[in-house]
């Protein structure tokens, strides 16, 4: 599903006006970004958790030139599905067949 289809689906689901939906979309993304950028996590009941994960610095070697690079540490936003969503996803294929 693409972004515009998604906006439409959310609009139908929430029965809000189009302008409001678009506005809220942006506000929600901004809020999630803000929460994560402050090092906090966001958990949505029944869905999952958005949080930051720190990746440590590491050595990397370019295999063709043999040059070594120190890749700096970074903070990566990750999503951990909640238990119920995870189980639904896990059994996704088997339900179908």
């Amino acid at each position, binding site marked *: 599903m693409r972004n515009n289809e998604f906006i439409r689906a959310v609009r139908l689901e929430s*029965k809000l006006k189009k302008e409001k939906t678009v506005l809220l979309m942006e506000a929600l993304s901004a809020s999630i970004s803000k929460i994560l950028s402050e090092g906090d996590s966001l958990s949505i009941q029944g869905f999952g958790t958005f949080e930051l994960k720190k990746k440590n610095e590491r050595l990397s070697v370019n295999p063709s030139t043999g040059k070594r690079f120190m890749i*700096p*540490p970074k903070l990566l936003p990750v999503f951990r599905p909640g238990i119920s969503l995870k189980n639904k996803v896990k059994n996704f294929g088997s339900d179908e067949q």
Partner: protein
Amino acid sequence: MNNKFLLQDLVQSILETNDLDKKEVETFVRAYFAVIERALFEEEYIKINDLGKFSLQKVEARKSVNVTTGEAFEIKAHYKLAFVPDVKLREIANKPFEHLEAVELDAEPELTQDEAINPNKPITKEDNIMEKKEKTVFVVTDKPAANEKKTPPAPPKPKKGKLVAWIVFVVIMCALIIFALYKTLSPDTKVQLPVDDVVTEIEPTTPAVEETSAPAPKVVDPSSWETLKVVRLERGKRLTLLAQEYYGNKVFWVYIYEANKDQIKNPNKILAGTKIRIPKADPAVINAKDPESVRIAQEKETKYRAQFSK
């Protein structure tokens, strides 16, 4: 930091940015996540601008072993959820480390380099031995410096007279001062060496290699030998493997290297596709069954290892 925000807090945070009705925002947020979930199971894929992509990914069935009982069983094929954050979100999240960039490290001591390079190549037992050798070489080169310090203080012990002791003392002081001067100066000269082009490094050291292998009376110059074959170096292949193939012992890679010195700047890093000339083996020099020739090759090998580990 490290606070756990819940749906209510998210709603609150959205409300701060605009003046909408709280109920509306809440229904919107619930709808938002409900739609993501629904879309996932309907289309296995959903992309949201500024947030990221969610998708279902199939994990194939695989065999596993129960750790406690040792019983083999099969993990059935299933799906897992993958989330790839949008570039925007990633950049915002990574703000604290934004200024950091990948740094090339080739001015550092070799030991770490070796550790870094080897994982790319199959590590054989021989490689491990080589590494150990290298380390010992490293230590040995350091020791003379330490010895210089320790040996001078020894003479004062046999006291033959005040005058002698005094002279010895002066000599020691001079030695220490010279040593200190040498030490303070030498880091500069040492720093310059690695900066120089690799070629200049090779040139002064090669004659030294020939000299040290001089105990063996023959002066060996494989570059003048007849060509047996020209090989294009494949990816992952190394001189040692070629030597094993053509001469029956890995150690003789040194001769292949010597024959191709103009092509190979550093035998540890040869570009794939480099044309390597395999010289025809002179049975007097290259003979896998002759321990003497193996020993000479090994000596050369240690030399080169030390040379290129700088």
